[in-house]
């Protein structure tokens, strides 16, 4: 693996924590847990044009974030990948910002193609985009990310049925299986059973990433998924992550789903995360 990419996650995590801390709001837990996924996708896997963003995404791979509350990791990675200046990260959740609490196309932020936040809608949007690619003979892929708790929304299964039944094989949907949701663990709130078997029974190809916080494992998993695409079935990756990964006192609990760290907690968290690419200026 390219050594330079290994430095990125630590910086992304610093961005997430500093962004959420600055406005004392936002969702650090899931953002930290999905850091390796976003770094793998945007720095290694996607065939994408990060300098001149085109809404239509023609002739490139496109990504949809369905669980929009993990906007901090999305914004940080988009900025670090070159979609917009890292200086803009300091505007997160502030008045007149393009970096709204949940991602939106409304303010014209490069890299965002759909608003998300109200859960369960992103897979349908991704399917429409995948159908558009098929219709225009564009062989690039559509990626999406969903929370495991998000799978409790019925619309996800409408979309899963469509994709499997209609052989939409240019889509790779990843499930962030961190086992947590706002009210507690998914096992307590609404046990999800065997998510992989559910997708298989809906006609999907399913693969697993056992450690979604191991960058090389995530890259390998995404590449395997790409190899499975184009063979008549949509592809689902069940990616196990730790909510809050990278910060010891935030790891593996739902408590940091939507809570910002205090000054002291931020300092403690940042001490565990080397500043590898330079912090964005406040």
């Amino acid at each position: 693996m390219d050594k330079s990419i290994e430095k990125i996650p630590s910086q992304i995590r610093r961005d997430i924590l500093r962004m959420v801390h600055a406005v004392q709001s936002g969702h650090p837990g899931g953002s930290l847990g999905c850091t390796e996924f976003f770094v793998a996708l945007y720095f290694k896997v996607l065939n994408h044009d990060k300098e001149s963003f085109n809404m239509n995404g023609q002739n490139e791979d496109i990504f949809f974030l369905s669980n929009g509350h993990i906007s901090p990791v999305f914004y940080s990675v988009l900025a670090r990948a070159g979609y917009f200046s890292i200086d803009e990260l300091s505007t997160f959740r502030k008045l007149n910002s393009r970096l709204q609490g949940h991602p939106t196309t409304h303010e014209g932020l490069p890299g965002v193609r759909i608003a998300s936040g109200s859960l369960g809608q992103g897979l349908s949007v991704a399917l429409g985009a995948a159908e558009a690619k098929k219709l225009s003979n564009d062989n690039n892929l559509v990626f999406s990310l969903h929370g495991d708790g998000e799978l409790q929304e019925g619309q996800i299964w409408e979309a899963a049925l469509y994709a499997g039944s209609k052989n939409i094989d240019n889509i790779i949907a990843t499930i962030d299986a961190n086992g947590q949701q706002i009210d507690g663990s998914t096992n307590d709130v609404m046990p999800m059973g065997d998510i992989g078997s559910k997708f298989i029974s809906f006609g999907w190809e399913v693969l697993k990433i056992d450690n979604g916080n191991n960058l090389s494992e995530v890259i390998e998993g995404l590449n395997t998924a790409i190899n499975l695409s184009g063979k008549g079935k949509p592809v689902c990756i069940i990616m196990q992550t730790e909510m809050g990964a990278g910060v010891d006192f935030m790891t593996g609990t739902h408590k940091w789903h939507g809570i910002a760290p205090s000054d002291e907690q931020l300092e403690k968290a940042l001490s565990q995360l080397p500043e590898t690419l330079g912090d964005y200026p406040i």
Partner: protein
Amino acid sequence: MHNFINSGNKDTRSGFGDGLLFLGRNNPNVVALCSDLTGSLKMNYFADEFPDRFFQTGIAEANMMGMAAGLSIGNYIPFTGTFANFSTGRVYDQIRQSIAYSGKNVKICASHAGLTLGEDGATHQILEDIGLMKMLPGMVVISPCDFNQTRAATIAISNYLGPVYLRFGRPKVPNFTPSEKPFEIGKADVLTEGKDVTIIANGHLVWEALEAYNSLTKIGINAEVINCATIKPLDLSTLLKSAEKTGRVVTAEEHQKNGGLGDSVAQALALHKPCPMEMVGVNDSFGESGKPDQLMKKYGLDSSAIVDAVKSVLKR
């Protein structure tokens, strides 16, 4: 007597189906999605001729709305089709977030609106859809009056960039607007010039308003009938000019009074040209099973109800 001639009863949904077929043949970017009501929406002609551009989603309207948003990202112009009830209330949040707030170029086409859906009853007779849709920022809302105007509106909205709600109905009703008249979004048409009262109607109530015009003429009342097919954006200049002239306004629509055309007109008049006004519409109630004409009579949505409303407004 007014000069409009019914060239033969036709359903507005067939106007949609005909317009969609025209678009299929003339605009390769137009695609259509339907949730298991292809025949009811008259989308079968498009689906048969352009199977690659037609997406059958099954009975899954939420997924259909999201897919439409996704197709629009790829520069296609998606037309979704299902009943008005399932086009709005059932999928309000999907439309709000994935289409309206996201600014997607999706055309939400809704049939079987209102009481004239008939025997299926109140579960399917949505009378709140215009209110729901006009509340969404940036959403254009259109309720054309007959086959010809529905066909023209279907074609016109393909050339407008942004989300549109197009509402039409099930029964065969008089077809009287010119067949080749292009539809202009946001433009109300003055059908009869008058000086005593302005009747502003849309959808199936426009023909009823013309019938009311004839009845009123016989008793010496000269009504100006306006077909206000676009509820949003409202054609303020045409409506206010007429209200200025007559000083009395009656609205008529197949919708709740709350949230419909009358509500939009009342707001416009209150802000710009206060004058006595009466509304013909459903008064905070659900519908029921019955034949369309029986329901329109029972719920006060026919020409005689419009005549009564005119008499009331002239007494004020």
